[in-house]
Structure formats: structure tokens, C-alpha cells
């Protein structure tokens, strides 16, 4: 009972981004409408008789009651096809470079530009032949989208088993050209290089799989202490200035995912610019290709319309699901989910909904759950493994983690990287707090780590225990000073310092240290562990801690991470042996008469 597109309806009230219109009987929830003479893009969020409430994605200045509203008959959808990678979109998938080329540096209103250039041409290679039977999600042909991405043109999920009537041969095809005709039970369907998908609907999968592989990020505190698995969900909460964005950027740069979707949701314009300028220059350590060749950016900065900020998260995750369906590992970074929650709050207030905690709508936890549950490790419709990992930044007001967004987010994630203001103030980055953070994926991926280093679990537990003991000792130190402690306890403080400065702190701008391979992580941790074990027995044997602290090789330990890169593990081992020798020297010295 959808009204025919273009049917007359008109605006009755305007309150910021929320517009009420009448004459919309038969319109559907979440249908996209065009409002006013400029055709501002909006979405129906409430229906009441022939009245509809519309959330408009653009500024409504000078919109008047009586202005026309036109239905499009379709929900808010994204275009899926080659050309997404390397692009930068606003919250409702309008391509920002194309808008700039057409209209200059400022974002005007009523822009309607296709997300992908319909005139673009791609080389299509068929992988099925005419007469073959195909099922949903099956690959019909391949397009090399970037040197890093072999883009699969798949049977759309809503087409049941079908027979291929015709398939295009290898060659250049326009984006909207038909490359295959499928005979289905309901008639023939034409397949082009581009598909559309409603952003608020998760794309179907065959089944979920347990997380078993780590998403390696090259960041020591994450990979070694609080790892995230491929298909896992993590949150990074932190007050302002604690380094959420830098941590997110680091992960987007160095994670071993096939595709990165970075959603800048209500954050700073300059941060997106930084990604845009930097990513084409940085080479992926695994493939040696520019990072931009695997990255999609969604930028709906804080001063862009708030309703589009609400949509940006869904736009991003829908794009991620499409690449996951190709059997790829996708990582989604959302910076920041708090701004998204605030957009929900702002819109709910304009809709005059009853507020729950701190003015947030009562649906906040449901909405958060819906978002995070679109992540996960899966078997795709085509039967391949694929995954979406989600890392959401959270910006708690006043850095207080007891606020609703942080609290509800914690229910739907399994990995929590708590950023700490005190660490950030001392410029200890990443400022992830080792006591308050946790990861529930340790068990699931310890199998992988044990293959790299059989002692991994033991080393990790030992280091974490040390840091915990240090944390408790610091309470005492605050009262009586460190010098009053016995050597055995002072040793713990000393080793914890080594761990913090020599292992946990990692400079995002240091060429050698910004990415740390798993092997180097294990080697660095191993050295510190050896120092600890050896020193402990020395102290038990009566050697003064002061003598150990003075050893020249130990002094170098803190800088090892920036001296020896990922290819120089042998040098780390050599240093380790030198330290051993020096420590042994202390024993000998003591043993001598």
C-alpha cells in the first residue's frame, strides 16, 4: 500500500531536524522521503494516520510549513559494488570527493550524487557459466577493485536458487550494466555490478562461528594482554585527551584485517583529514601496498547534520557486511559511539519521547546491542569464513565510566580497553589501563599464540600478576615511600617500571615501534620475564637490588623496543643473553670469597 513515488504530501511543522508532514497515508516506516523544494533527504521515523514524522539528514533552515514532501518508496539504502574502497562518504553514503568536485569546499544542501560513479567501468571476470545453478551469496564473477581487494560480484541474498541464463564474458563493464541474467522461480533477474541494501537490515549469513583467530593489531598491550579476536567486539572508553582517536587510528593502520571501515561519527573534521592524508602514504606491513587500498571512510563530523550522524553507524556496518560476505575479515572502527548515542538522544528529545537515564532514550541498550551484534565471525551464505570485528570508542562525560553509554556498551562487548587520564597526562601512550581493562577472548585465541610461543599464557599471566601486585604496593608506597620496602618488593616496582616503559608504552609515531610483530612482542616480554626471575633468585641469595639496577645492559632494556625493529629479534635475544651474563656476574661476584 505504498503511495506511488512522487505523491503529494506536505510539511506541517518544523522543529530543527525533525519535520512533521501530512498526506503520507500508506508510507512505510524508515522510508526515505525528499522534503521541500531543495529535496532534503529524510527518513520516516513515526507514522500516525496520514501524518508522518520525518528525521531530516540536512539543515532545515527556511523550510516552511506547506512545503512538498515526496516519497521514494525505498528505505535508506547503500550502494554496494566496486569503487567503495578508498572512498570517503558522509553518514548517508554521499561521496565527499564527488561533492567537492561539483560544489566546492562547503557542504550545501539537497546534494544528490550517486555513491558510486555509474559511469565507472570495471573488468569483470565470470566464474560461473550459463546453465549452472547458483545459490544466494555465490560468486558470479570477480572484479579487481584495488590491488588488495578481489571484489566478488555475488548473487544477492534475496534471490533464491536460480539458474544462470546468461553471463557476460571477461571484459570491461559499466557499473550499472547487466552482467548476468538469472532465472528464478519468480522470473528472470538482472544482475549488475552494483547492488542496493537497506542499511538498517543485517545481511543474512549461514551461521555464526566461534572466534578463534586474533585480530593482530601490532600494539603490544592489546595483542599480548587484552587481545581481540577476528569477529570480536571491543570498546575504548576514555575522557577527552586520553588518546581514543590515536588508538583507533593505530588499530585502523596496523590491524591484519582485509578491509577497514572507519566511521568518524560526530568527531573532528581535522581527524578525518589526517586519515585521508596519511593512509595513502602508509604501507601495509603485510602486503606493502598503501593502506587506503583496503580502507573505506565514513565522515560525519560533529558539525554535520545530527540525523545523518545517527545513520552513519548503519551505513558503515552495512558496507562491512557486504565485504564480509565475500569471505573477508573486516574491521569496523566507530569513533565515537557516544556521539551516535547523543544523536539518538537529540532526536528522541525532538520527538518528545520519554527519556530514560540522563535523557537518553529507553531504546539505547537495544540500539547498541543491534549494532554490536552485527559483528561476529560467520560462515557466509556461500559457505566461506568471514568476520566483522567492531571497535567502538566511547566518550564518557567527565571520563566517568558509570554513565549509560559506557555501562550499556559493556554488556555487548567482550573486550574493554579502558583509557586512563593519569597515564595520558604523563604522556604514557597508549593510555590503556592494565588493571581496569579486560579481554574475554584470551581463552579463544590462546591456541594461536601458543603456536607462536609455547610459554605465552605463562608469560602473560606472570606479567599481569606483577602489574597487579605493583598496583597494590603503590598504595603502600603512597603512605611510606618506596625506600621503606624490602628489596623483594622493590624488585616488583622495578620490574613493573620496566614493563610499563619498555613494553606497554608504544610510540605511535616511532618508525620502528609503531607496529610490533607478535614474535617481537613475545621476545620483549621474554627478556623482561628473565630479568625478573633471575633477579628474584639473586635477591633471595642476598644480592642488593641496587647492584642489579646499576647493570649497564639493563639500562638499555627500556630502549630496546625503539632500537630493534621487527626484523631484529636476534639482537633482542643477544641483549637478553648479555643481561643474563651480567646477572650471573653478580652471583659469581658474591660467590667469590
Amino acid at each position, binding site marked *: 500500500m505504498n503511495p506511488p513515488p512522487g505523491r503529494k504530501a506536505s510539511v*506541517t*511543522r*518544523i*522543529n*530543527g531536524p525533525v519535520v*512533521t508532514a501530512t498526506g503520507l497515508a500508506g508510507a512505510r516506516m524508515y522510508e526515505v522521503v525528499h522534503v521541500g523544494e531543495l529535496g532534503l533527504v529524510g527518513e520516516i521515523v513515526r507514522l500516525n494516520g496520514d501524518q508522518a514524522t520525518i528525521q531530516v539528514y540536512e*539543515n*532545515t*533552515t*527556511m*523550510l*516552511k*510549513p*506547506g512545503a512538498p514532501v515526496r516519497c521514494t518508496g525505498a528505505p535508506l539504502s547503500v550502494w554496494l559494488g566496486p569503487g567503495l574502497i578508498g572512498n*570517503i562518504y558522509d553518514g548517508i553514503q554521499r561521496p*565527499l570527493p564527488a*561533492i*567537492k568536485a561539483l560544489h*566546492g*569546499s*562547503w*557542504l*550545501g544542501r539537497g546534494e544528490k550524487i550517486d555513491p558510486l560513479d555509474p559511469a565507472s567501468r570495471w573488468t569483470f571476470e565470470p566464474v560461473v557459466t550459463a546453465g549452472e545453478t547458483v545459490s544466494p551469496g555465490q560468486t558470479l564473477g570477480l572484479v579487481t577493485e584495488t590491488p588488495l581487494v578481489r571484489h566478488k560480484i555475488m548473487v544477492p541474498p534475496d534471490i533464491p536458487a536460480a539458474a544462470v541464463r546468461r553471463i557476460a564474458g571477461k571484459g570491461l563493464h559499466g557499473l550499472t550494466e547487466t552482467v548476468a541474467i538469472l532465472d528464478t522461480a519468480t522470473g528472470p533477474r538482472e544482475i549488475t555490478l552494483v547492488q542496493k541494501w537497506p542499511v538498517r537490515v543485517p545481511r543474512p549469513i549461514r551461521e555464526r562461528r566461534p572466534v578463534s583467530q586474533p585480530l593482530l593489531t601490532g600494539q603490544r598491550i592489546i595483542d599480548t594482554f587484552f587481545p581481540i579476536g577476528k569477529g570480536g567486539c571491543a570498546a575504548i572508553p576514555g*575522557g*577527552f*585527551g586520553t588518546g581514543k582517536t590515536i588508538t583507533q587510528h593505530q588499530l585502523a593502520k596496523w590491524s591484519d584485517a582485509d578491509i577497514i571501515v572507519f566511521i568518524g561519527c*560526530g568527531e573532528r*573534521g*581535522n581527524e*578525518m*583529514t*589526517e586519515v585521508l592524508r596519511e593512509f595513502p602514504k602508509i604501507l601495509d606491513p603485510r602486503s606493502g601496498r598503501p593502506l587506503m587500498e583496503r580502507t573505506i571512510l565514513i*565522515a560525519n563530523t*560533529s*558539525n554535520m547534520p*545530527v540525523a545523518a550522524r545517527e545513520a552513519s553507524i548503519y551505513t558503515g556496518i552495512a558496507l562491512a557486511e557486504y565485504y564480509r560476505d565475500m569471505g573477508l575479515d573486516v574491521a569496523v572502527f566507530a569513533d565515537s559511539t557516544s556521539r551516535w548515542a*547523543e*544523536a539518538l*538522544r*537529540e532526536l528522541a*528529545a525532538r520527538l518528545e519521547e520519554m*527519556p530514560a537515564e*540522563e*535523557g537518553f532514550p529507553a531504546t539505547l541498550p537495544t540500539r547498541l546491542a543491534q549494532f554490536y551484534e552485527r559483528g561476529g565471525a560467520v560462515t557466509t551464505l556461500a559457505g566461506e569464513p568471514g568476520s566483522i570485528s567492531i571497535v567502538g570508542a566511547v*566518550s564518557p*562525560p*567527565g*571520563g566517568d565510566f558509570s554513565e549509560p553509554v559506557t555501562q550499556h556498551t559493556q554488556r555487548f562487548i567482550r573486550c574493554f580497553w579502558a583509557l586512563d587520564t593519569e597515564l595520558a*597526562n*604523563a*604522556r604514557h601512550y597508549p593510555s590503556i589501563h592494565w588493571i581496569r581493562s579486560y579481554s574475554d577472548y584470551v581463552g579463544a585465541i590462546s591456541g594461536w599464540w601458543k603456536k607462536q610461543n609455547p610459554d605465552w599464557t605463562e608469560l602473560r599471566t606472570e606479567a599481569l600478576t606483577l602489574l597487579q601486585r605493583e598496583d597494590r604496593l603503590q598504595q603502600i*608506597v*603512597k603512605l611510606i*615511600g*618506596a*625506600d*621503606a620496602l624490602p628489596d623483594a618488593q622493590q624488585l616488583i616496582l622495578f620490574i613493573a617500571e620496566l614493563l610499563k*616503559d619498555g613494553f606497554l608504552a608504544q610510540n605511535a609515531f616511532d618508525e620502528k615501534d609503531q607496529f610490533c610483530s607478535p614474535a617481537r612482542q613475545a621476545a620483549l616480554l621474554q627478556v623482561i620475564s628473565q630479568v625478573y626471575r633471575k633477579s628474584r633468585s639473586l635477591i633471595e641469595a642476598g644480592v642488593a637490588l641496587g647492584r642489579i639496577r646499576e647493570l649497564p645492559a639493563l639500562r638499555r632494556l*627500556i*630502549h630496546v623496543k625503539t632500537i630493534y625493529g621487527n626484523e631484529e629479534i636476534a639482537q633482542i635475544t643477544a641483549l637478553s643473553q648479555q643481561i643474563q651474563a651480567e646477572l650471573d656476574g653478580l652471583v659469581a661476584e658474591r660467590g667469590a670469597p
Partner: protein
Amino acid sequence: MNASPRISIPDKGLAYVGAARIEGPLVVVERVRDAGYDEMVEITDPSGRPRLGRVLDISETRAIVQILEGTSGLSHETLRARFLGESFRLPVSRHMLGRTFDGLGRPLDGNPPPLSSDLRDVNGLPINPHAREYPREFIQTGLSAIDGMNSLVRGQKLPIFSGNGLPHDRVCAQIIRQARLLEGGEEFSIVFAAMGVKHDVAEFFIRNCEESGALSRVAAFLSLADAPSVERLLTPRLALTLAEHLAFDCGQHVLVLLTDMTNYCESLREVGTIRGEIPGRKGYPGYLYSDLASLYERAGRIEGSPGSITQMAILTMPSDDISHPVPDLTGYITEGQIVLDRDLFQRGIYPPIAGLPSLSRLMKDGIGKGYTREDHPALASQLFACYARVKRIRALADVIGEEALGPLDRQVLKFGETFEHRFLAQGETENRPIATTLDLGWEILSTLPREELHRVSAELLSQHYQTGK
């Protein structure tokens, strides 16, 4: 009772007589036809005095108009509302430099309004993130605490978080006097927006510009403490609209000074409360973040345009609380913050710039080799680390007494004193070049044992560490 509106046709727009309701700064006009959201409205009382307002909410039956100049003296029956058929626009021209305007853009200096046919919507448009240029040019302010540890770059938005009674105005004035690029180049134009500050504060800034000979490069928009509070919602938008014209049309480098953002936010809360909106934290409206962002994000650089907008907003933290919604949300939008510290101030240290909570996010890209000096990043990081240690040890010394500290801890405490009195502190007219700041930093670091400086490479230490200090 509702006065029945009579429609008459003035020279521009439709006029309605009578209002259904007047409450605080809001006037509800009924049966309005053909008016738009955010449209400008002129309200006149029987004496004929016009006041400006804008439409906050409009339906087929009524319009809610926010009066920017107060509603005192208005009455239901006699009020005349004229809908002007356009949103609030400011005529902009480069000749506005050297002039003083009120909070709604009318000249205060007795001269006629500047002539311009170039009218700009004061809400501006968002910059396409793809069109931004990343800010990188180091601005030397001559203050060691800023240049050395929280460097400012051209196109950055860096607010000053202060408290009542702290010398934020003096610090800010010193920055205005001293700020320049390393390789020289054009000077800044300054657009100054005062929101709810006292007359003498506005006076102070203008006199300061006059003394430094910069007055011809300053445009001031003053909505002072005795002006109607709602007016302040418009004042920063006027200033930024002019700044955008100067920067991106005329190619100038513009420094926008907004003071005091706390007053601006209070006006926003006032209007929100009267409208019966659902409040967020501390009664501030839920859209405070988006609203602040619509101001702060109007800074930066645009690809292909020579100009830039650098923003410094001053805000006073109520009871020095940095987690109060105003500083908190500001910190989430701006690219760092300069925090003034009451403790330092009371110990007589000027400028009392807090060492640890201050931060410049864009610093990393504007300093170091090719910008300031190669050793700058490591030096800054080491100073932060050492000062954090000072703070820890001070807390300990408060409990166990300084005498009970170990020799190294006492040495660190001494470093803290030197750092505060020699590095942070400087004269109000003292303009330290960046090289002096950096050398001073090394000199002070050299009072600590070399092996305690973990953040600096051995190579830099051998170049800069001064033994025997």
C-alpha cells in the same frame, strides 16, 4: 487571551499583530503563514523600538520566536511581529576590521554600518572534510609552556580552560601580542567575540590591541554582561561568519577569540529550559555538544585557500571543575586545551599553565625536524614524564614528609621547583623564541641523572644533556 492577528504588508515580509504567549525570551505568534524555520523576525513594541528574533519551531498554526534582545515591555496585544523572509545574515567585508559592533552586528563606534552586498548566513555551512587541509604550521607564542609542551598550529582550535579570578585574559592578550610564524609572514587579523563578559574585560582586550598597534586588524563583536543573554547565541556566529570571509575569501590568517564560552552555554540552557526541553547533564540541553561543535568546527584550513582560522575560546570552569559539561564537551571537540591552574597562580607563577592536563593534539605534526627542532618531540615527552613524577612524589612527600624521601626523589622535587619557576614562569612582556624555550628545557632536565631520562634517545642525550648541572 489571544489577540487576533491582523495581517498587514510592510515594506518587507508579513507583519502580525499580537502574540498568544510571551515567556522569557520566547514569543508565540499564531496563524503565521509562509514563514520558515530559523527565519529572522523583527518584533516592535508600541514605542516602535525594533528587536530581532528568530523562529525556533514552526507549524501551520503557530511560530515560536526567540527574541534576541529581551522581551521586557512587550505586550500580547500590541506586539508587532514582522517575518523578514530570510534567515539571519550578516553583511561581511574586510572593512569590518578596525571596527566594533554589538552582539547583533550593529556598529558601536558611532560610524555607519559597513557597506557590503555580500550577505552570509550566520550559521555557515560545514566544511567538506575532504576539502580540509591538515594544520601543520607552528605558531610561536613566546610562552614556553605553550610552545615547548602544547604547541599551537595555524588552523587549530585550542581553548583556554580557566577559573574565575585566574589571569586568562592576560595570558590570552600576551598570546595575541606575541603570536607569529617562525619564518615571519603575514600577521593575524583578529576577530573578537565577547559573550557576557564585563565591560572592563572587553576594554582590556581592545586596549591591549591598541597598544600593540593591532587595532586596525581587529573586528570586535561585544555582547557584554548587561546585554540580553539570548543575544549571545548569535554573537560567536557573527564573529565566525566574518572570520570565514576574511580567511577563505580574502586569504587572511584569522585568529578568532571567543570569551567566555561558559556564558554562551548558559544562554543556551536558559532558552532550552524555557522551551521545556528535556535537559541533559546539569540542565544543559542534550544538543549542547552539537551546538558547540557548530562553532568550534568553524576553524581550520581549506585546501587551495591561503587563509586559515585559528580559534582560541576562553571558558571559565564553574568551581574549577574540568568535568563540568562545558569544559568537558569543549575538550571533546577542540584540538587540545590550555588549562590554568589555581595552585600555580597562588604560588605566584605566571602564566599558571598546568603542566599535565594541558594538551595540544596537533602538536605532533607541527613540531620536530623541519618545523621547530629535531629534539622538540622527545624533549616535550620527557618533560611531561618527569613532571608527572614530580606530582607523584609531591603527593608522597605530603604524607611522609620531604625528609623521609630518598635522594633521587628529592632531586626530582628540586627539578619540579626549577621547572615551575624557570620554564613555566615568565614575564608578561617576555617573548621567548622557541630555541630559547627548548634550550631551557634541556638545561632543566640536566638537573636530573642522565639515566632517569627514558624518553630521550642516547643520541639526543649526548647532544643536549649538560653534565655537571
